[in-house]
């Protein structure tokens, strides 16, 4: 400390002021948000996957959240207060993320938490937050989260499949379905739901397979699919497994005759799969970056203007953080504050319009648009929008 004083005494008064400003700027780089205006800004924690398996989506999530905060502040903030985002890494182990969350709530006194991360972290964080502040969970997930104080914007398996399976079955005359996914709760829940919709649409399930995350060679599974005579594959593989499987699938010549439908195939995964291997590859999601609705065109233009054309590719997961903050704004304005009790009272029934259309909360989940896009050629082209699809959740 004394060295610092010696050095600073050597500067002129002006120089000392610049030094102080510089140090404040360096200290402040962990907090991203708008500059302080009138009253103290309200702090909102945003949990993003900077590291770990979902680290791929960290940059786009941060960007989307930052853009949302800036636009919300330009509109007047939430309940009259400007908001300031505080980011934390949600890619660590659940225990470590809980540690960050406790610090954010107790020390930084955040008024709300927006989380874009996996379910193991969500369960741990919900347990830790315990309705002290509103906790908004944004990405696609396996359904079933009914903990009090957790508001879920993410697509559920029912949402992604209830309208899509009958429509696609009809359009492409799909009869024999093969289900393949990684071995954990989201794929298993999704397949359980899918079986009902497939049966209702007149199809049968001719195979079901779950692969551990260590598997990197999918030849045996592809042989199984060939042997089963399936005309459709429902894919709930994630990340690298999804890329590896889809690439091998197409290279074995199956893509021309067998339709693929995935519920977590977003723009990055499609880029990894490659245009040549994406024939007849469909994806069902609440958001696609290439959707040419007026609202989304505005959003993507704003994103590019703010972060540049080389910025992290927009995708459903990153964009969900933007919607999470929009929801916070809508409910917070309705309630007049971010105080938990007031917020909770108005949450169900709150609606807003985002880049992917109209969204309305019911049962602490949302009714929202689901898009079915075709990835043939290497970019998603939206073939159908299903408006106002219910989440299928019945949380009281």
């Amino acid at each position, binding site marked *: 400390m004394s060295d610092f004083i010696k050095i600073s005494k050597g500067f002129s008064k002006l120089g000392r002021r610049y030094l102080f400003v510089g140090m404040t700027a360096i200290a402040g780089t962990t907090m991203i948000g708008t500059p302080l205006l009138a009253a103290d800004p309200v702090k909102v924690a945003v949990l993003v996957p900077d590291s770990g398996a979902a*680290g*791929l989506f*960290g*940059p786009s999530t941060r960007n989307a959240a930052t853009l949302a905060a800036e636009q919300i502040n330009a509109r007047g903030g939430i309940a009259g207060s400007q908001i300031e985002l505080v980011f934390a890494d949600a890619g660590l182990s659940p225990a470590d993320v809980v540690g960050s969350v406790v610090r954010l709530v107790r020390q930084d006194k955040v008024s709300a938490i927006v989380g874009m991360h996996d379910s193991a972290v969500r369960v741990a964080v919900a347990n830790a937050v315990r309705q002290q502040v509103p906790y908004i969970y944004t990405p696609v997930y396996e359904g079933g989260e009914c903990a009090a104080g957790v508001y879920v914007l993410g697509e559920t398996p029912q949402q992604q499949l209830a309208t899509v399976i009958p429509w696609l079955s009809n359009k492409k005359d799909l009869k024999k379905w093969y289900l393949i996914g990684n*071995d954990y709760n989201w794929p298993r829940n999704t397949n359980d739901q899918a079986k009902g919709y497939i049966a209702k649409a007149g199809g049968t399930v001719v195979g079901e*397979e*779950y*692969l*551990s995350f*260590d*598997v*990197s*060679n*999918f*030849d*045996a*599974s592809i*042989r199984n699919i*060939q042997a089963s005579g399936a005309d459709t594959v429902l894919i709930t593989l994630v*990340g*690298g497994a999804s*890329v*590896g499987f889809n*690439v*091998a699938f197409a*290279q*074995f*010549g199956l893509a021309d005759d067998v339709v693929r439908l995935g519920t977590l195939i977003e723009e*990055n*995964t499609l*880029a*990894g*799969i*490659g*245009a*040549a*291997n994406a024939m007849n590859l469909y994806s069902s999601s609440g958001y696609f970056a290439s959707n040419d609705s007026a609202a989304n065109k505005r959003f993507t233009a704003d994103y590019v203007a703010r972060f540049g054309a080389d910025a*992290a*590719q927009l995708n459903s997961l990153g964009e969900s953080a933007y919607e999470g903050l929009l929801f916070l704004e809508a409910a917070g304005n309705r309630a007049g504050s971010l105080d938990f009790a007031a917020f909770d009272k108005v949450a169900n029934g709150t609606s807003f319009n985002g880049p992917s259309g109209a969204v309305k909360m019911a049962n602490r989940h949302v009714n929202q648009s689901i898009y079915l896009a075709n990835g043939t050629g290497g970019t998603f082209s939206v073939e159908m929008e299903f408006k106002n699809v219910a989440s299928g959740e019945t949380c009281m």
Partner: protein
Amino acid sequence: MFEATIDVFWLITVTMLTAFGLAVIFGMLKVMNMAHGEFITIGAYSVVLIDQTGLPWAVGVAVAGIVAALVGLCIERGIVRHFYDRPFDTLLATWGISLVLRELLEIIFGRGYRNVSPPIDGMMPLSFASDAGYPAWRLMVMAIMILAAIIGWLWYRRSRVGLLVAATVENPVLARSLGMSTGKIKTGVFMVGAASGGIAGALLSPGLRIDPLIGLDYLISSFLALVIGGVGSILGFVFGAGFVGLTNGAVAQLAGPTNGYVALLVLAIIVMWRFPSGLIGLLQSRRSQFQLAKINDDD
């Protein structure tokens, strides 16, 4: 049946290609190179770059080998050569290097997945009976690997450089006293190990997801192959890679890919427990026992 055979052979090919660099560097230099996977990643990204320029795939493979060799040169000259008699320290040092390399790759290329199209499209029919075919580019990679293996083996056995390398590995002190520049030879061996990793990444790139972190998966699978086969001899390596591919492939066909991986882990545990010098060690000791018995019989 034919399909099953070729599936297994592809697994063997992938294992051999990806583990060879580690086998060379650990077998000959006794260096536990934790950055081995990153050479493979560098190889894959080299093809990504060359692909963007429109040059043919073969150029990508060559560039992959050269870039990986150069990175290997820097690593060996800069860091590894100071730790040749300290195996645990090389493990730590190369782990640190792997962290740096992964971060560099992320800074240069970003985290997003990349894709590379194969040098030849389409499938080759395998037999006259069925329509089923096999991706043509994989057949080409298998052919390249067999050719490279034959040429490499002959060169190592017949050439003067191969003799120098063998001498350095066998008895470095004696080799140095005879005037061989063991330092340069060791650097060369390290570069060969690195280059083979790069070339493996390039050859396999049309079937991979390509992102900065894929190296870790290959590190693990390469270690498994070395543990099972035994370290220190090329035959041991071939044996190990072959066994790994066979076990994984066969069990995967019968009981699913997850169980294929489990079978590998079980095999590794058994080998480490009962045959610490690997399966090749087992074979060699059996052979020398047999020879001893023969000598005793002849009396």
